[in-house]
Every structure is written in C-alpha cells, then in structure tokens.
C-alpha cells in the first residue's frame, strides 16, 4: 500500500484504480472538513460533488505536490455552489447536524455559521481552518483583497457577538 499522496496521484493518473481508492481514503476527511462548515446541512452533497470533480479531473493535475491546494480550491468552490443552490434548506436542517464535543457549543457554532453567507463561511474556513492569509483566500475565492478583508471582519464579528450574547 502506498501512503504518500504524491505517489498515489501518479499511480492513479497511470490507471491504477487501487491507488484511486487509497487516494479517496486520504482525501475524503480533508474535503469533508472544508465542505462541512460551508455547506452545513448539505455537507454530504457538497463533499460528494467536490470528490466527483476531483476524480473527474485528476488527470489534469500536473503537479502532484500541489494536490491538497488543488483539492482545497475545488472543495471550496463546490461547497459554495451547493450552499447557494440549497440555501433555503440549510437553516431548516441545522438541528439534524451531528454535534461534536460540547453539544451546546457545537450548536452555537453551527447556528452562527448558518447566519453567514456561504462566501463568508468559505473565508472563515480558508483563514481559520486552512491557515491561508487574506490575499491567498481572496485569490481562491476570486474576490478583491479588500472585499475579503471586510467579509472576514463581518464574519468574525458575528462569531464574537454569538459568544458574548
């Protein structure tokens, strides 16, 4: 079994479907971690659609070393698209989301995230989960740096308000 993602990508691009299977094992938790907070109740749909897009275009990935950055961009794009498409259903399904850790805290996080737009949630994920700087997050979301900064400020303010209320 190959563990190294770069070698897995090369083997998968060479036609080895077992390498594709192992790559799926490695990518699914990562994609789910990005799609969950952006697509919320539609997280499974977004994760599936992001992985479909990843495997459909895996042959086009020229630099296997850039795998996770490439996957991140696809996952954010698909999560925002699914969240926009299914926007109205998200809030209604929040109560069904599984809570992790402190149940009340988890519900607060989900509730606060649900009050933000998908684009705001994407910015929070890229900055706070993925550790991108504002310029890189803005570029990935194809918005001007100033727009990203103000959106992030509003998103964080929503979180602060939720914690202190």
């Amino acid at each position: 079994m190959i563990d190294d993602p770069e070698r897995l990508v090369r083997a998968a691009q060479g036609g080895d479907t077992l390498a594709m299977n192992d790559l799926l094992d490695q990518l699914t938790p990562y994609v789910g971690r990005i799609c969950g907070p952006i697509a919320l109740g539609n997280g499974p749909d977004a994760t599936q659609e992001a992985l479909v897009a990843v495997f459909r275009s895996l042959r086009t990935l020229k630099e296997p070393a850039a795998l996770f950055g490439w996957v991140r961009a696809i996952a954010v794009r698909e999560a925002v698209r699914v969240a926009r498409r299914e926007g109205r259903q998200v809030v209604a399904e929040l109560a069904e989301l599984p809570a992790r850790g402190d149940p009340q805290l988890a519900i607060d996080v989900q509730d606060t995230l649900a009050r933000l737009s998908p684009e705001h949630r994407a910015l929070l994920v890229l900055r706070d989960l993925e550790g991108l700087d504002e310029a890189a997050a803005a570029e990935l979301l194809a918005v001007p740096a100033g727009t990203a900064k103000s959106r992030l400020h509003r998103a964080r303010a929503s979180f602060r308000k939720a914690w202190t209320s």
Partner: protein
Amino acid sequence: MTANWPQVELDAVRRLRALAAGIPGAVVTERVFDRPLPVVWELMWDDGRSFAEIQPDMHAITDLTVDGDRVSLHARSRYGFRAHLQGTVRPGWCWLQSRFLLIGMAAAEEPGGRTRVALTGGVRIPARAALVPIGVRRESTKSLDRLQELVLRDSAG
C-alpha cells in the same frame, strides 16, 4: 473553536459515486433493500462466498487472502476465464481490480432500517482506469437482481 465546526462523514455509496466518476465508462447502479446494513452486507460479501454468487458470470473464487482490509483472490468465470483480483474490502465497501476486471460495491444505511446498495464495474481496458462501455449497466442490474433473490431468501428464513 474550530474543533466544533461541522464535519462530514461520507457514506460508502457517496464514496463509490465519487470514485466511479474518475473512471470513463463506469456506471453506478443503485437499489434500496428493506433490510438493515449488516444483513445486506453479509449477503453481498460473506468472505467471498455470496460475492461470487452475485457477480455476473463468476463461478468460484479461490486463494482468498485477507490482510486487514486488503484482499487478494482468484476468480474463475463460468467460461473458464481467470482473474487475480486485488483491492480493499471492509464492511459496506469493496473495491477490486485485476488487469481486465473492475468490481466496486458499496452499501450504506437508509432511514427506516433500510440499506442502499450501489454497484459499479465491468471489463477494464487493460491497466487503465477505464471500462469497456458495453453492457455495464445491464451486468450491474443482474447483480442487484441476484442480491434481491438472496435478500428475499434470507427474509423467508
């Protein structure tokens, strides 16, 4: 704080749809069975016994070796063809390839104690992640029909 952010656990059927998307010629065929996941999965795999029963044209499997979730086996068709299949099998998931064959099976819980089963696979274009796009859906449908028979037989006791 981010530890409490919602995360996604993707079920096996959704995973199979994603993986099949990367294989030109592959089709995913699905059916929902009115039995719980552990029962249906036992009927789909059963250490290779029922697996051979539901696969089209498969007569028997031999030399099954299991190392964790890694599996290797030899399959023989009714027409005498042999295939050395290797891959991964775990509850609800089976992904096997040989030089000329690809077999994917997934099962996931549905509300009400039911189980969704998804199948893909077929004749592989040798050593490539692609299938010969002939009869793919028909063969998967045959497998689902055979599984349905096993489920009915099992339900009847």
